[in-house]
């Protein structure tokens, strides 16, 4: 098969409880796939299984024709399977420029060097500047992350991911927690992602999903209940049930 | 205004003159000891011995005033020991060094003595080998081998043939084990088992179980004085070894007077050998105990390091007398070689060859006095004991 990335029958049990059941999906290069689902559908577990934070009980993760299921999180990143985090995980004492520089150096396997300067490489510096420029982070490049706006932190998450030159990118709710005034900038960044990159986006914001995704997968109770194009999602009865059932529950609790 | 200035000037002048003249005539003695921390009691006894000597014998020798400078070295720490000694010699300009509780601390000072032209009088550190490190060291205390060796004969005399030895696993403990084994086997006994206990042992009942299982008729023990001793003796009583008739021999570190109140009645009957008991019956000791008790601040705190310090000060006074205030370490040491006097512990002398003290070792039994308090009662004397550790070298 020519798929860049696919998962086959991914299953995870915690004790007796199945949090992921027989999940299979495939992505060619250039894919823009959105994974949606109500709270507790198992999206985060899925991301963790794919990126290697969790080991599946059954199933395979295949990248570029290679089975990476047995590999740890770090090796998968090195093979081009990269993620962002739902809640930003950044180093509050470092600047965006330092984050991206470190990431580029790491990608080049130069990050464990002791006998070179952190900013000693002009080529790296140029790439970093380019990335930060693309994401509109140049003006805050040398301020500590703890002091910049949350929207900018989210953009930095994407910049870090891109600095790793991924083949497959998992965006875990890239717009979560961002004030609506800043969402256009995130959207813009998503539009500018390299075209050949396969992107799997997990998102709640349906507007964003509809504008971004070519295809949509809906997850509920650990299972895929829908695969298709965005325009069909709303009409699907199982999806409606999953969401509205959830909604009804939410109503009764309130 | 002017009058005030004049008075001030005069006062300053007097002050300056005073210090200058005093400095010219003051001989400084630096004392290093554990004055704080886990061994603070021993350091306090150093101070008590020094102060008692100066109270009884005056604070000057041949017109030279003696000034004592104390420096704290809470635990064995050679680097700090060297730093303190260096400071005392170079900065405070002391002409004599004294004190030192731990062997490694003494070892760190000995390489300095020649350049410093300063003798070191050791008040406690009890390893034989220190004396060979420098010809400028004199010791006024004891060595573990010296206080332990008579026990070999004593055990045999009391009908004991098989002994189990239990010592703390560190230098002095190992020395004690070796010295006892040598003396006991020379006298015809047999050490059936030798246990070395980690220094930080808190519960000694498993050791006592081993003592019981070994079938020995007596236990020979050495632990550093302090809390561990208490645990050991308690366990010896609690586990019924005492009632079972297993005898207990140890050097006197185990029944130092300041630990006796804590040991209580459990200590009664313990047999120890040592160079000094606070109860020693002599006029010299009465004077000493009176003065030292005053200095240490309570009779229950007085213990053996005080007498080492007291006699150490005696040695230093004699050195000052011989050199008449001039700094000449070799002459000072030569002057006390062969020196003999009556110490609170009994007759003593400095061995001319080893520079270590020759003294009586006493066998003591812990008994209950008429006031209900326990004390070490001297019941047998082994006169003029040298350090067997040095003699063999």
């Amino acid at each position, binding site marked *: 098969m020519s798929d860049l990335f696919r998962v086959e029958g991914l299953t995870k049990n915690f004790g007796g409880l199945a949090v992921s059941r027989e999940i299979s999906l495939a992505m060619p290069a250039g894919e823009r796939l959105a994974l949606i689902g109500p709270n507790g559908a198992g999206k985060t577990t899925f991301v963790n299984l794919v990126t290697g*934070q969790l080991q599946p009980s059954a199933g395979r993760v295949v990248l570029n024709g290679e089975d990476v299921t047995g590999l740890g999180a*770090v090796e998968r*990143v090195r093979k081009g399977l*990269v*993620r962002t*985090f739902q809640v930003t*995980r*950044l*180093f509050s*004492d*470092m600047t965006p420029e*330092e984050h991206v520089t*470190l*990431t580029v*150096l*790491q990608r080049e396997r*130069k*990050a*464990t*060097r*002791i*006998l070179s*300067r*952190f900013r000693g490489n002009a080529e790296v510096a140029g790439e970093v500047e380019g990335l930060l420029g693309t994401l509109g982070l140049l003006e805050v490049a040398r301020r500590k992350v703890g002091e910049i706006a949350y929207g900018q932190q989210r953009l930095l998450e994407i910049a*870090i991911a891109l600095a790793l030159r991924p083949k497959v990118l998992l965006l875990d709710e890239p717009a979560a927690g961002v004030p609506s005034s800043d969402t256009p900038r995130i959207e813009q960044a998503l539009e500018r992602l390299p075209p050949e990159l396969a992107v799997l986006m997990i998102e709640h914001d349906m507007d964003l999903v509809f504008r971004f995704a070519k295809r949509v997968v809906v997850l509920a109770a650990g299972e895929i209940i829908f695969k298709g194009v965005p325009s069909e999602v709303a009409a699907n009865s199982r999806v409606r049930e999953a969401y509205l059932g959830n909604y009804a529950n939410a109503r009764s609790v309130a | 205004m002017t009058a005030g200035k004049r008075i001030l000037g005069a006062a300053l002048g007097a002050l300056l003159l005073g210090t200058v003249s005093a400095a010219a005539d003051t001989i400084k003695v630096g004392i290093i000891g554990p004055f*704080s921390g886990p061994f603070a009691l021993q*350091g306090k006894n150093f101070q008590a011995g020094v102060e008692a000597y100066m109270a009884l014998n005056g604070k000057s020798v041949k017109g030279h005033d003696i000034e004592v400078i*104390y*420096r*704290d070295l809470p635990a*064995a*720490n*050679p*680097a*700090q*020991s*060297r*730093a*303190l000694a*260096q*400071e005392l*010699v*170079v*900065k405070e300009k002391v002409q004599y060094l004294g004190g030192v509780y731990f*062997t*490694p*601390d003494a*070892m*760190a000072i*000995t*390489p*300095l003595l020649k350049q*410093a032209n300063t003798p070191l009088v050791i008040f406690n550190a009890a*390893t034989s*080998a220190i004396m060979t490190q420098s010809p400028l060291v004199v010791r006024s205390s004891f060595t573990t081998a010296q206080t332990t060796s008579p026990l070999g004969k004593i055990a045999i005399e009391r009908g004991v043939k098989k002994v189990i030895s239990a010592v703390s696993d*560190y*230098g*002095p403990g*190992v020395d004690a084990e070796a010295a006892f084994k040598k003396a006991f086997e020379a006298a015809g006994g047999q050490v059936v088992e030798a246990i070395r206990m*980690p220094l930080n042992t808190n519960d000694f009942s498993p050791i006592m179980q081993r003592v019981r299982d070994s079938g020995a008729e007596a236990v020979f023990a050495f632990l550093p004085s302090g809390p561990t001793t208490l645990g050991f003796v308690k366990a010896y009583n609690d586990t019924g070894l005492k009632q079972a008739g297993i005898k207990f021999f140890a050097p006197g570190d185990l029944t130092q007077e300041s630990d006796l109140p804590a040991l209580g009645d459990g200590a009664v009957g313990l047999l120890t050998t040592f160079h000094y008991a606070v109860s020693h019956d002599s006029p010299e000791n009465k004077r000493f105990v009176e003065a030292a008790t005053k200095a240490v601040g309570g009779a229950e705190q007085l213990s053996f390091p005080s007498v080492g310090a007291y006699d150490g000060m005696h040695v230093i006074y004699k050195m000052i007398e011989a050199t008449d205030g001039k700094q000449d370490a070799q002459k000072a040491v030569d002057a006390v070689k062969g020196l003999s006097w009556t110490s609170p512990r009994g007759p003593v002398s400095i061995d001319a060859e080893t520079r270590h003290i020759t003294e009586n070792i006493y066998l003591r039994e812990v008994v209950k006095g008429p006031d209900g308090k326990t004390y070490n009662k001297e019941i047998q004397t082994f006169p003029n004991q040298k350090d067997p550790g040095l003699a063999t070298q």
Partner: protein
Amino acid sequence: MRDVAGIVLIVAAGMAGYWLFPDNLALLTRVIAVALLVLSIDLIVGYCGVATLGQAALFGAGAYAAGIACVNGVTEPLTLIAIGALAGAVAGLLMGTIMLRAHGLAQLVLSIAIVQLFHEAANKASAYTGGSDGLAGLTVGPLFGVFEFDLWGQTAYLFGLALLVLVFIALKFVVSSPFGMLCRGIKEDPVRIKAMGSFVFPVLLKMFVISGAVAGIGGALAAISTQVVGLDSVSFELSANSLVMLVLGGLGTLYGALVGTVIFMGFEHAVSAINPFHWMTMVGALLIAVVLAAPGGLSGLLEKITASGKRTRGGRA
């Protein structure tokens, strides 16, 4: 630029110590040896976020290695320092391998267990280490064949100061290298670092080795200048004290390590000379006061003061 100024300041302070306290050089040399130990802790605690109460194991490894080499005829000081650094690095490798298996409190306890085992091993191997009597009889040859390690301790002090400055410069390079940044990242969030495609364990282990070498140099310096190695150099007490010095000075700046060591040891020396019997209370009060006044350590306090100074100046401009 700031670092150049900082290093000039260290050299100046070192020389000031030499001129102002010419009679306390042995103490100052000891301060330098401990400062190296505290620096090595800063590498692990301040830059990697690994808590340790057992760093003296590495210091002691360096001290004993240098001491044993010296007793066996290696008397050239620089060689001894190199031996100490090597031994420290090997010990660091071992310690890191064990400690990095755990996190948090468990890690702290592993470090304690390791230093206790080292201590016990040094006590047991008394044939080589002298046990509790200490390893004595180190006669170190003159530095460069000329300068003797003598009573006055000028050689030892200047040698130590030079070592400290060199190590400090080297460490400044280390912590500002890509590797140093990576360690800082791991300290803040190891999961993020993994998501960047970097392993955590080998990076931290590398820092343990570097830290071990630094601690080992400190140990070797202590051995050379004291000419005796005691069990205290592999003790929990030394480990705990030096961690206290580091926290006192402030973590993760390297400067804090130096400030903390000098303040703690200087204060301890001063109060224990004034009252050899009850100085501990004063040291305790100092620690409490620092926590109340400057929870981030003394260097953090300095930074705050300079930062507020800058801010006011900036405001005027």
